[in-house]
């Protein structure tokens, strides 16, 4: 009696275990199929050659006369290293992403700080208003700046009307427009984590510093800024990583001198129809992003975003 019920229990728990694992299996299989395996295929295709066939690349393996031939083609990676266009695109993407991260920090930090200093009851509303534009369409926000920045756009006509400039400024289709677009689109992703880390600093600390004679500026640089480091790093990664792969902003706001690797990949794929080269570019981008992504995951920065 006793033993039979214990075996029954065991079987039940065993069944429950399989049930649980079947449940876990659904998302696991989904992500294997639609996230992990695709990367292996990208890696594979990056070693083949563009071809006028459907799909437009040569097969890696050929089975001829009972011999399996595997042809690994390193041309794509060689041209990544030797062709100045690609090298330049990588360097200039990293440069653009770094500068815009710093600019987002310089503009976003004061705003986040100002929000964290308002009445507690206002915080939720203000943060919601900061995030609201980013929930509307990304393309439309870029489009808004195309309206403003063009040669006969509103910014130029406004500046000429009040007499600051006589000739219209050429901003659209230059790197200036790209910077403006990136900062505009990614600023909320800097403000939110910085605000979250500022909010968690106890007021007593800064007040203690002031009571002990520190001037407000000193209290800020000695207490507030170091304690919000986590938020700053989270925000920096949240800006830097997607900007490296940004396609739409350089495509719509940038000009001929704007070279960003995401956009180069897009053009290689859609305009030159060179799928293997695009695959190689994706692999290279992934390698470059590996370090920031690892750091980002290690600090569990996503938690910084949703600690609402």
């Amino acid at each position, binding site marked *: 009696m006793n033993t039979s019920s214990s075996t029954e229990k065991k079987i039940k728990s065993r069944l429950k275990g399989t049930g649980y694992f079947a449940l876990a299996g659904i998302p696991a299989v989904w992500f294997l199929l639609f996230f992990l395996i*695709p990367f292996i295929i990208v890696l594979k295709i990056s070693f083949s050659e563009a071809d006028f066939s459907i799909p437009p690349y040569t097969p890696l393996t050929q089975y001829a006369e009972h011999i399996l031939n595997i042809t690994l083609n390193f041309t794509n990676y060689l041209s990544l290293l030797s062709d100045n266009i690609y090298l330049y695109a990588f360097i200039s993407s990293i440069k653009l992403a770094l500068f815009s991260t710093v600019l987002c920090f310089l503009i976003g930090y004061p705003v986040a700080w100002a929000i964290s200093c308002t009445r507690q009851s206002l915080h939720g509303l203000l943060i919601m208003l900061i995030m609201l534009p980013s929930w509307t369409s990304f393309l439309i926000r870029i489009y808004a700046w195309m309206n403003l920045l063009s040669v006969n756009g*509103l910014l130029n006509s406004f500046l000429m009307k009040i007499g600051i400039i006589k000739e219209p400024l050429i901003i659209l289709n230059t790197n200036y427009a790209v910077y403006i677009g990136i900062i505009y689109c990614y600023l909320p992703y800097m403000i939110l984590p910085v605000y979250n880390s500022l909010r968690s600093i106890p007021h007593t600390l800064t007040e203690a510093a002031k009571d002990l004679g520190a001037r407000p500026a000193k209290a800020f640089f000695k207490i507030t800024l170091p304690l919000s480091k986590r938020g700053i790093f989270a925000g920096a990664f949240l800006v830097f990583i997607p900007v490296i792969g940004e396609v739409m902003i350089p495509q719509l706001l940038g000009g001929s001198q704007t070279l960003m690797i995401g956009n180069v990949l897009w053009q290689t794929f859609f305009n030159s129809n060179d799928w293997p080269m695009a695959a190689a570019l*994706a692999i290279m981008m992934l390698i470059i992003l590996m370090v920031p992504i690892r750091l980002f995951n290690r600090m569990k920065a996503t938690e910084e975003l949703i600690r609402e």
Partner: protein
Amino acid sequence: MQQFFINLRRSYLILGFVFLYLPIIILIGYSFNASRMVNVWTGFSTRWYAELFNNRELLNAVWMSVRIAFSTATVAVILGCITSYVLIRYRSFRGKAFFSSMVTAPLVMPDVILGVSLLLMFVFLNQATGWPETRGSLTVWLAHVTFCTSYSAVIISSRLQEMDKTLEDAAMDLGAGPLKTFIFITMPLMFSALAAAWLLSFTLSLDDVVIASFVTGPGATTLPIAILSSIKQGVSPQINALATLIILGVSAITLVAWFFVRRSNLNSTHKGITQ
């Protein structure tokens, strides 16, 4: 000195909000401009809205995007729920860390990489198995569910983590099975997280242009793809009108959701105080 800091903060706030909202407000304003030229104001008119509602191609794109976004959000929340349950409530199993990093990786992956890899995978699958036969709304949906599940999982697991597990344990002790416990105890407790995940997935799917451009096929033009091809030709007042409708729609939904969440938070703090 104190006054100086208060003024400084106030001006930062005002400047920040002006920067974020002025371009959008100007865009909305010029959607009511009678002239085709976007920089000259010639008078108030709603003609661009009328033209928009006669633009069949654009309306079809809107309908396609809404359908994809709706089914994406629904499936992504279900998958996200399962994922969070596995991540937070399961005892650790072999490969849990790997599972966790695989599920959250799409969050930090640039769209071009996701788009190119999914397209190559669909082409490969098609060659190997004949499925999917063509690329179109199905492949866009599969791609969207993948990255929206990651977002849903992050939102839902943070709620699940802070939730009191004793309530679930109590239900189980009183004889409710795991499924019953989940439906009657866990789900109601994390309703706001589920709603937030659904809304975020919906807007992300509705907004995606890069991934959809890669994985879509002939005949399946989503709204962002239609907008992109239109604004590549330059500024057009019809797009201003469409943008205005999108912005107002999203803002209205967000405000309503925000008020609901706030009210439920206020209610729960109130209850806490009276208890």
